[in-house]
């Protein structure tokens, strides 16, 4: 295939494919020989497949796909009460037979679609958000949680061309964990900035984000760093996540090996700045894929702290399922090496409905108006695609 119009060709072939950000550009995974839809029953046996001690690995000896939020709760025995469901699968992994490297500049001639509706509906309005917010502040005062992330959803009903949306998104917002899944029944378009796990051999690292600042012409990266450093609320929120991620790594790493590699740096994106740290460790012997998934997922920075109690509080509050939101997308090689992100800043396109979920943290000194607005800032780059 000619690389310049490879995306045009693949969009015509009508077969599933995945595009995932790589170091140099993107990887295109396709020609799937297996598609595994995860359930409570098969997830353990699926994860066991990736503990093989193979010496020679082919590039395609991997599964690429995602874990939804619910199945990650199942894995760590956290219950979710009955919620409004969309019957979307709890997780799907694909075995590719072909991987093509693409460069950063994705070229694609979109299909012709009637004008899309740019209107989005929000599931929790500001009044209700404030109510929920105040309820959790009381829980923080009682010590039941130290930080909790309330999820709100934006929905739009209209037909879209996911590949076009993804390509446009990468032009404005080339996020380090960007990905697209294009399958017949659904698509996920993501500009996730957050890496949850990179595991190679016995090394493992995570890069939590906590702290968001909206861009304006007066700001630059240096000023943003100054803002975060001086802002006690953002600093405390970030500290908490760093200690929590150190904890999650400590479950599976050798004592004394968990280190903070980069402490509180700023990363720049289209509409915002993020406050980020990098933490790594050396895995204990005999740690299996399932142990890693269970200790690291769902990623702490999008849940709150402490994780288990906060998950329970969240699950009892949220009336609609999170679906893919705060799940993880990535790949696992047959030898157990893996890379996963946290699914945030993503569009789930299913049955002609686009769903964008966002969350921001309630801590003791946050206020409802700011957090409600922060949610919108986070969704904006995606909502703008529909204009």
């Amino acid at each position, binding site marked *: 295939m000619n690389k310049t119009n490879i995306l045009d060709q693949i969009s015509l072939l009508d077969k599933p494919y995945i595009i995932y950000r790589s170091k140099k550009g993107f990887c295109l995974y396709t020609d799937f020989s297996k598609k595994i839809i995860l359930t409570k029953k098969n997830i353990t046996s699926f994860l066991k497949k990736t503990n093989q001690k193979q010496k020679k690995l082919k590039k395609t000896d991997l599964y690429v796909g995602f874990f939804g939020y619910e199945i990650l709760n199942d894995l760590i025995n956290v219950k979710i009460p009955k919620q409004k469901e969309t019957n979307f699968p709890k997780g799907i992994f694909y075995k590719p037979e072909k991987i093509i490297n693409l460069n950063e500049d994705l070229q694609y001639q979109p299909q012709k679609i009637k004008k899309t509706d740019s209107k989005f509906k929000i599931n929790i309005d500001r009044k209700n958000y404030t109510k929920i917010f105040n309820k959790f502040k009381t829980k*923080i*005062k*009682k*010590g*039941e*949680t*130290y*930080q909790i992330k309330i999820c709100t959803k934006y929905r739009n009903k209209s037909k879209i061309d996911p590949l076009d949306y993804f390509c446009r998104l990468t032009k404005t917002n080339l996020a380090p964990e960007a990905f697209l899944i294009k399958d017949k029944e659904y698509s996920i378009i993501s500009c996730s900035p957050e890496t949850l796990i990179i595991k190679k051999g016995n090394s493992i690292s995570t890069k939590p984000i906590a702290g968001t600042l909206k861009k304006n012409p007066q700001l630059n990266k240096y000023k943003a760093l100054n803002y975060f450093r001086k802002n*006690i609320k953002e*600093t*405390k*929120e*970030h*500290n*908490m996540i*760093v*200690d*929590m991620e*150190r*904890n*999650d790594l*400590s*479950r599976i*790493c050798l*004592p*004394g090996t*968990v280190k*903070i590699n980069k*402490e509180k740096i700023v990363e720049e994106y289209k509409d915002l700045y993020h406050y980020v740290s990098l933490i790594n460790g050396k895995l204990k012997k005999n740690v299996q894929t399932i142990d890693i998934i269970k200790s690291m997922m769902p990623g*702490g920075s999008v849940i709150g*702290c*402490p*994780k*288990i*109690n906060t998950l329970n509080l969240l699950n009892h509050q949220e009336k609609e399922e999170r679906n893919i939101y705060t799940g993880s997308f990535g790949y696992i090689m047959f030898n157990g090496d893996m890379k996963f992100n946290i699914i945030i800043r993503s569009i789930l396109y299913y049955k002609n409905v686009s769903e964008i979920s966002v969350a921001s943290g309630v*801590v*003791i000194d946050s206020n409802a108006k700011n957090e409600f607005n922060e949610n919108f800032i986070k969704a904006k780059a995606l909502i703008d695609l529909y204009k």
Partner: protein
Amino acid sequence: MIYVIDHKDSFTHNVVHQLSLFDQVLCDDFSKVSKSKLNQASTIVFSPGPGSPKDYPISSKIYKKFKGKKKIIGICLGFQQILFCEGASIIEQKKIYHGFQSEVLVNKSSKLFNNGQKFKVGRYHSLKLKEPFKAENFDITMRCAISGAAMSFENNIDKIYGFQFHPESFLTINGKILIKKILSA
């Protein structure tokens, strides 16, 4: 062996890692505590955790059973748990510290640390000890340099120690030394 009783916290394994630098450490959820491990342990540690001491009657029972027989250490909620068992009230505080680095000051009642010594520590607590508080052989040995809230106690007769702050947090400077001191006390 040190036996850590986990109150389902997201910092417990940081505690485990820090203690592992000094001894073998085992850790179980508070609802799945093993009698034989409790008996084998030389030191029992009550971990941090959400909620308040009254939510963990099992931990209170363990404390009362092993008080005076083994070294006991409490961190954050664990600190409150021990004091609660000693008759203290644990109350909400006006200003809440989550992910907060602050300075604590050692006072003259400490046998392990020097009077006037200061430490930078990481704090994650909504609740605090209601004072005045009195219990036999228990001394408040560190206080927040600003608010004066109780930050550490020592009972050097029964070998019971506690920190309201988190010695395992990356926000605590020299947390390892703090832990080493009470482990070797």
